């Protein structure tokens, strides 16, 4: 009667995607904080600049992943995109 398979699937997808997304977002925030700390609290040498840039680029990459996940969510909501399922 109760569809255990789809229940378990829903649980796995929901838990997996929330944990994944929050991990990526937190990582992005942490990289951004790192970049700001490097910028404000170390003397400006070439090596420092590079590591600041790496942190910052990493952070933006993480936020981009989160943004695409939100867009994918919108894609899922709108049936127009997958009518011929």
């Amino acid at each position, binding site marked *: *009667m*109760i*569809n255990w398979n*789809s*229940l378990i*699937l*829903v*649980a796995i*997808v*929901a*838990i997996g*995607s*929330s*944990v994944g*997304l*929050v*991990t990526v*977002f*937190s*990582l992005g*925030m*942490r990289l*951004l*904080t*790192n970049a*700001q*700390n490097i910028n*404000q*609290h170390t003397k400006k040498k070439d090596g420092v600049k590079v590591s600041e840039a790496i942190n910052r680029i990493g952070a933006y990459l993480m936020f981009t992943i*989160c*943004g695409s996940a*939100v867009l994918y*969510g*919108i894609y*899922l*909501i*709108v*049936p*127009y995109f997958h*009518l011929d399922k």
Partner: protein
Amino acid sequence: MDPILIVALVVGLALFFDFTNGFHDTANSSATAIATGALKPKTAVLIAAIMNFVGAFLSTAVAKAISVSLINEGIDIGPELVFAGLTGAILWNLTTWLLGLPSSSSHALFGGLVGAALAFAGVAAINFPAVLEKVVFPALFAPVIAGLAAFLATRIAYLMTARSQSSRKATGIGTGRSNFKVGQVFTSSLVALSHGTNDAQKTMGVITLVLVAAGLQPTGDHVEWWVIISAATAIAVGTYMGGWRIIKTMGSGLAEIKPAQGLAAEVATASTILASSNLGFALSTTQVASGGVMGAGLGRKGGAVRWNKAGQVVTGWLFTLPAAGAVGALSAFLVMSGPFGIIADLILVVSVSIAIFQISRRNRINHSNVLSEVEGASEVIASPRQVRKAAAEAKKKASKKVTAKKAPKKSAATKSKGGK
């Protein structure tokens, strides 16, 4: 009674249900964002309302009411039955709003329709396995799935930002975790959008059902444009009015929520709703959102769920189906007695609704006092920039007062100076 007239009554009642649905469920998407200070209360409900309105238009697929499958085939779902069912749903929504309980509007609608069908056609009318499968079991699992997701996500969020937090504290620059608020703006919008596509569809389905039953529309495979527009408007207006009592319960009553938790709860809510609606497992938005808040509350060290309040909320869920069903059934008996019964029923519903609104005025809760106790908490987690801004504004106000006293006519000149 004139069939056109009763159809008009049912459409009006369905739109009123849609309105209560909207303001009942504002909390799902905006409560945690308001609680953490990510969005101001008025802004949060405005965004939720716009997203609900847009969401109602996004989905042009046929709005099939799940409620139909709860009632066995062969039972004629005429306008009278829907009328009686809607009254049960509306009164339950208003009662739970008065008590500040987040309860599922879908369950209220199912309950009302099932109760009305019971009164019309007896026990044989109800498809009990479907009730168990579509209402009872999902109600048990929705909060657990969302709660677990939010719990784990909260843990991860605190773990991932732990070192940067301590390093920021050491350097004396604000706390990095309040940046989670930025993410909350997007996640709460996504929750509102998915709510709009789901819940506005429900009302559209009910109205379409009645139009088909009355022979005003040949088949149920399309939704009239005026139905879409009016349903979208009703749910958006309801959302903008905001069920502040429920927002208060969800934002601060169940657990104390900080930005990282708020983000975790909203991500969990959004992904659970999206996963279930795409994999064909019907979950209640409200129960998912409440479960997410509780899970996030447990996930933070030192955080706690107020089990007392949580118990009240869950009790409300248990009563939703039978209570809305009882009102729906009583209403059905009245309706069956003829045109006067319908009019009496309508007068009864309207007067009870007005009474509930009057009672609610005794202790009004609105955007200005909704989370007064939480505001204290959000000041602690305010960024230094916000603190500086607030201090500057206070200074400006004080100086304005002084200049206004000294030279009231020169206030225009001082204003332009201040604007520099």
